[in-house]
């Protein structure tokens, strides 16, 4: 885990700093200073602990609420359940899993997210390889154009694409939503992968070419395996982006193809009356990204850093 490693570095560094300080202190005992630094470190720990708790409380609230009956939710604060764990029940989740609409929309989310992720990864890898290792006229201008698309807000394309989808009967279909996600995922994906692919040592490619590999073989056997870290990073990022999206699906899907976010959003309009569906539904929608996040944290952070240009 990267963060762990960062932590180790930081620790090593502060140890160095400490020894440096000790050296400068040698000669004059500065007990007071040492005490003060101990004390302030205690204060820092306490402050960080409070912040951490503060940061966890909202999610904890949702989680605990999702384990309470609707009557309890509207009757008392979720924190009271912490004192009476016996109140907690899985009944909301049972109801959720028997809710046709919810299950359909969960399935839709999968149907949208998987192809949109795979599509972006495949198309962007191909294009990034071309941008990095195949020469053709106008290549760099084309690449700059792709970079220029990096920050285009989704809003500018919603209406025209909606019109186009109506014309081609893609409106309301999962394909339409997927295509739109692929389109808006591509600039960042190409940008990220091209930069990575360009770093592959030239000799490797030359050697492969020498041995008679076609571009396609080189791409499959050399570039993709070597580019895996970047591809993984991209895939996770794209997965989360599509899974968490609401706006695109809100515009392009209809009631039979809408993903979980849109379905929940519809339920929210009547917040309170169906909090028993909303709370577990929202938790369900966030638990999968969280699993992805914790499993692939390193790639996630990488993608995030590289993506700090994208809005």
């Amino acid at each position, binding site marked *: 885990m*990267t*963060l762990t*490693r*960062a*932590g180790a570095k930081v620790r090593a560094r*502060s140890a160095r700093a400490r020894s440096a300080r000790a050296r*400068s202190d040698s000669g004059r005992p500065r007990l007071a200073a040492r005490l003060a630094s101990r004390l302030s470190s205690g204060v820092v720990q306490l402050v*960080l602990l409070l912040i*951490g708790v503060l940061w*966890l409380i*909202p*999610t904890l*609230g949702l989680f605990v609420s999702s384990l309470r009956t609707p009557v309890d939710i509207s*009757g*008392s*604060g979720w924190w009271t359940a912490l004192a009476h764990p016996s109140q907690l029940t899985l009944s909301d989740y049972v109801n959720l899993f028997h809710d046709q609409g919810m299950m359909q929309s969960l399935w839709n989310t999968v149907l949208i997210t998987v192809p949109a992720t795979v599509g972006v990864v495949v*198309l*962007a890898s191909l*294009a990034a390889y071309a941008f*990095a*290792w195949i020469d*053709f*006229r*106008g290549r760099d201008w084309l690449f700059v154009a792709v*970079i220029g698309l990096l*920050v285009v*807000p989704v*809003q*500018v394309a*919603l*209406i*025209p*694409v909606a019109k*186009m989808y109506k014309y081609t009967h893609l409106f309301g279909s999962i394909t339409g939503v997927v295509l739109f996600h*692929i*389109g*808006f995922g*591509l600039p960042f994906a190409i*940008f990220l992968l091209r930069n*990575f692919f*360009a*770093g592959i040592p*030239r*000799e490797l490619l030359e050697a492969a070419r020498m041995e008679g590999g076609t571009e396609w073989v080189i791409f499959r056997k050399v570039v993709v395996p070597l580019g895996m870290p970047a591809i993984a*990073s991209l895939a996770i990022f794209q997965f989360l982006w599509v899974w*968490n999206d*609401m*706006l695109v699906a809100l515009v392009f899907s209809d009631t039979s193809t809408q993903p979980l976010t849109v379905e*929940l*959003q519809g339920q*929210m309009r009547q917040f309170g009356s169906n909090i028993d569906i909303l*709370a577990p539904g929202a938790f369900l*929608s*966030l638990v999968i990204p969280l699993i992805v996040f914790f499993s692939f944290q390193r790639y996630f952070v*990488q993608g995030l*850093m*590289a993506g*700090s*240009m*994208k809005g």
Partner: protein
Amino acid sequence: MDTPAAAAPGPGEPPDSPVPGRQPGSAASATPTEPAVTEPARTGPAPTGPAGPGKAGSSRPKPDQPRPSRPKPGRLRPAKLRPSSQGALHIPLRVRFGFLTPAVVILLAIIGWPILFSIWLSLRNADGSSFVGLHNYVSIFTDPSTLTALRNNVIWLVTAPTLACALGLVFAVLAERVKWSTAFKIVIFMPMAISFLAAGVIFELVYQADPNIGVANAVVVGVHDVFAPASHYPNAQPRSTLGYRSDKAGYTSPDSYTAGSVATVPLTGYSVLDLPKSAAQAVTAKPVPGEITGTVWLDLVYGGGGSPGRIDPGKKGTPGITVDALSGTTVVAHATAGADGTFALSGLRPGTSYHLALPASDFSQPYAGLSWLGPDLVTPAIIVAYLWIWAGFAMVLIAAGLSGIPRELQEAAKVDGASDFQIFRKITIPLLAPVLLVVLVTLAINVLKIFDLVYIIAPGSTLPTANVLAVQMWSVSFGGAQNQGLGSAIGVFLYLLVLPAMYVNIRRIRRERRES
């Protein structure tokens, strides 16, 4: 178009021109420093620098699928172009374009062409049937709801990125000083992974108006009640048949009492079940010379029974109620009822008659906290939710930047006697400036396009007050109005707003490129 690339070694690709993205290393790394957190070396940037240029000469033509071994433009100075090799290098058109075509087609269909179409639509009326010039753009600045959205976007833009950045900075700096910084960072960073929708539901719960449900108001009310304790008996009142006068100050008894007499104050309008646990069976007070004694009780028996105004078995006192003795309008004595409802007003002059008063604070409504999602607070409340999500992003990038600052500088300053704060102000911050800029710009782009969070958290009644451009764009073009002209204009306007941020980013990429 099938020109062998080798024959055209550079048209369209001025060598080393400072075009963004040319430099493989620069762009992908947001900061020059992330190794500590991200191991960017694996993601790309780092290895590129050295790998590219030096290897140019080694390229060779291969028998099959010849490829122009021209070095990658932009990473090589033209002088280094190796002896332009062996003519016949040439990749079939279908191969070259097979790689690119799918992506380019989709990009053109989903982004490229729609931008142009949007611009065209933005110059036309609601259904696109006639040309209206810049009318839609004028509307952005004149239409009241769009103007509100614009104003809110400005508020967002000024506050959210700065605050997120400040929080991220503080978190990153503090986290450097504890051993469990990893755990801390994960906790702060976690909200990044979840959807705005889930975050919206989470904060809708947090901001519930009822302090018994919403944690924000629970805290506010808790703090408030420490300083101004709530009354235990909201809505209770003396039995109305007794003729107590009621005004803003509270209730005043119609009868007057002298020292030594015994008063009865039966209350109604309150549920027996809500009585404090300490409440005990009410008893009739004993007369005490020089004092007015009496009983305040809840004149109801649980389950029914008893007669009004009488202290029957089952009726309980109302501990904590304040009873004042009034002479004219001045309070001359003050007592609090005990568990059985009895009170004793002492220090009275014999022979004088007093009225009893129950001050309004006995019956005041409990403090209900703030209306977070009401018109006044809704935007700040949503910004807080945004900070909850994005402070982690700022923190991770800044922490990576911090780890790249040469430690020696800070240690040297320390040896020279600089305080922690001075080091932070004079060394850390200036060295971090590039990273802070990246974070600010990224968040600014992000904030301009904010949609989900506002749309989800703001309840229907205050959505107009919390409006932002992206939400407005959605509402005018899809949420009912179907005004595609105005919708497109807002979309294009958003794009224009984002462009300067892109410019800053491109400049940064160029600079990093030059430095590397």
